[in-house]
């Protein structure tokens, strides 16, 4: 007598893949009488989530984790099945999936943005989120419309200005990709950056100044040292971009509480040292020569409004920032470290034709999460990965569970927690094993609804088209991503006579 458990995972990024990995491993090593079937759904025809559409093109080593994830689908014992181009909420509802699978794990991450909620954010041309910009340069099929926005914003024949708002790695990625993409000498040709992005960034070789701003000091920044170091090396590596930091702004941020924070954190100490070295080398905030590209990392500036250009009222012209200072946080018991940034009444207008708002990704709800989705935070309420308030059998992992933080590896630990909750519920018999069809039922639904399911084999067709050497700009380019659903599905189903 064999018992089999059917699992559907919604989302095939690191969260979904690590969850599948640990579930698969447990059952591969378990009693032969217990079996599991795991189906992984993704609304895109391609798997791996932000590993494909978030990691920067010049960070190919970070994408190596895809090899690890691919093994899930290719292993002999209890392989995971990929259901690409299947959107939960459109092609099949969450409630339908929950009725046919014993266990459903939500791993679909965060697809929208935390907003600044300041004037001009939604009305002026040239203001977009960093997430949209990143999706665009990574050839995400839902973001090709960003091309026109970026192209127009960067079309000036005078010095172009971009402001990136935020002090995390996404903000630094945006600045670095802009600096490298707009570089006159070497560029991003040998990467997997979207072809349209490469040409848009290269179209105009007028110098560009990129200013990264954030409301707190350098010690509070959420960035990590590897990404900061890459900015310090732009010049030496031949990208023709100076990286500049103001020594004054470092000093303003070095309050007693900040220094205490520093003392307790080795990573922050190393960052402080690196930034001080940079300020000592390139301390002026103005461009060294009008022909060089400039990346400025600025602190203690809080954007209060997006202002229109003086000549064209519909376009962004300036980002108005208020100078801030750090003071101890009143509501947090005195640990000597917690501070907030408050306005000083002094304002700075930073010119900008393009503004990238990078203050956090945010999750979105789907039907069936009315009791558990927390709108403010954009996450699904849960206990150790078990979703609250929607009945048994529903779990969550990754950013949708804990918010948009951490690195790829953080999802491994997160997934272990959720899998532990699932296994505990199975042991405690809190999960009714429904035997309601699982894969067969889903396949039937999708067939009846004429959904073109991209399975692992069909994805390999896309993969081989994208890595075909004939498509490459040069020998080093690793992949030429197909940027539209049309091209992706044509590659997946080459012999299909039906137009896509």
């Amino acid at each position, binding site marked *: 007598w064999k018992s089999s458990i059917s699992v559907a995972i919604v989302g095939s990024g690191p969260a979904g893949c690590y969850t599948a990995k640990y579930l698969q491993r447990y059952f591969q090593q378990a009693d032969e009488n217990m079996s599991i079937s795991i189906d992984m759904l993704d609304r895109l025809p391609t798997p791996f989530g932000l590993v494909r559409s978030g990691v920067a093109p010049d960070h190919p080593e970070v994408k*190596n984790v895809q090899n*690890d994830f691919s093994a899930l689908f290719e292993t002999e014992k209890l392989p995971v099945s990929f259901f690409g181009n299947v959107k939960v909420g459109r092609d099949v509802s969450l409630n339908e999936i929950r009725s046919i699978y014993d266990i459903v794990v939500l791993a679909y991450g965060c697809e929208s943005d935390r907003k600044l909620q300041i004037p001009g954010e939604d009305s002026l041309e040239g203001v977009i989120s960093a997430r949209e910009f990143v999706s665009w340069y990574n050839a995400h099929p839902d973001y090709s419309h960003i091309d026109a926005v970026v192209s127009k914003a960067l079309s000036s024949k005078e010095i172009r200005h971009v402001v990136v708002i935020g002090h995390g790695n996404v903000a630094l990625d945006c600045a670095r990709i802009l600096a490298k993409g707009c570089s006159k000498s070497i560029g991003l040709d040998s990467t997997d950056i979207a072809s349209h992005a490469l040409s848009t960034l290269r179209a105009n070789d007028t110098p560009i100044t990129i200013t990264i701003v954030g409301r707190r000091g350098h010690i509070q920044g959420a960035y990590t040292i*590897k990404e900061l*170091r890459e900015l310090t090396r732009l010049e030496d590596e031949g990208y023709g971009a100076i990286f500049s930091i103001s020594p004054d702004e470092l000093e303003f941020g070095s309050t007693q509480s900040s220094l205490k924070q520093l003392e307790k954190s080795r990573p922050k100490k190393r960052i402080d040292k690196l930034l001080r070295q940079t300020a000592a080398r390139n301390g002026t905030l103005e461009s060294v020569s009008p022909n060089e590209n400039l990346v400025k990392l600025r602190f203690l500036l809080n954007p209060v409004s997006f202002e229109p250009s003086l000549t064209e009222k519909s376009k962004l012209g300036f980002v108005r920032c208020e100078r801030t200072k750090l003071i101890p946080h009143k509501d947090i018991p005195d640990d000597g470290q917690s501070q907030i940034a408050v306005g000083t009444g002094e304002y700075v207008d930073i010119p900008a034709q393009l503004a990238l708002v990078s203050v956090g990704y945010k999750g979105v709800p789907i039907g069936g999460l009315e009791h558990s989705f927390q709108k403010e935070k954009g996450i699904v309420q849960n206990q150790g990965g078990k979703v609250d308030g929607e009945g048994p059998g529903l779990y969550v992992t990754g950013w949708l569970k804990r918010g948009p933080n951490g*690195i790829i*590896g953080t999802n*491994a630990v997160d997934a*272990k927690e959720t899998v532990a909750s699932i296994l505990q519920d199975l042991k405690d018999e809190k999960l009714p094993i429904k035997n309601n069809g699982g894969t067969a039922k889903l396949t039937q639904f999708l067939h009846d609804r004429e959904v073109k399911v991209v399975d692992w084999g069909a994805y390999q067709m896309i993969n081989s088209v994208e890595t075909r050497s004939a498509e490459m700009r040069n020998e080093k380019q690793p992949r030429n991503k197909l940027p539209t659903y049309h091209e992706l599905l044509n590659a997946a189903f080459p012999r299909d006579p039906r137009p896509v």
Partner: protein
Amino acid sequence: MFGTISRKLGGNSISFWRITRRQDGVVLLGRIVERIRGFSTVNITYIEPTGVEKEVQAEIGENLLDVAQNNNIDLEGACGGELACATCHLIFEKDLYETLPEKEEEEEDMLDLAFELTDTSRLGCQIKVREDFKGTKLRIPDDGF
């Protein structure tokens, strides 16, 4: 056209590769002689997050991430050993830790992000097995589950 390359791997293993270029330009690699394994291994123990101790025979010169993965030890290596993540983080015994080769800046940068970092932490992919690792116990950080 044919070419033969012989490569010395580690202290005691040798591999021979034969390269053949077909007329249509495809390159084939054939391993003519399998690695001649030296018998230079030492026993080391990995302590998995669950507390389970697993002793393995580790080949001298191999890095600790590869040793773990070749022996089915529960150690992640997301970036495949290219200093682009912190998942192969291992905690060493103090005495051995102090004799390890110095960390390069890149490893330090990644260690800053490691889960449950300690004073005797290193990234497994950067440490190659030595004779004097014999009998040592390497702890994989407890992820709580």
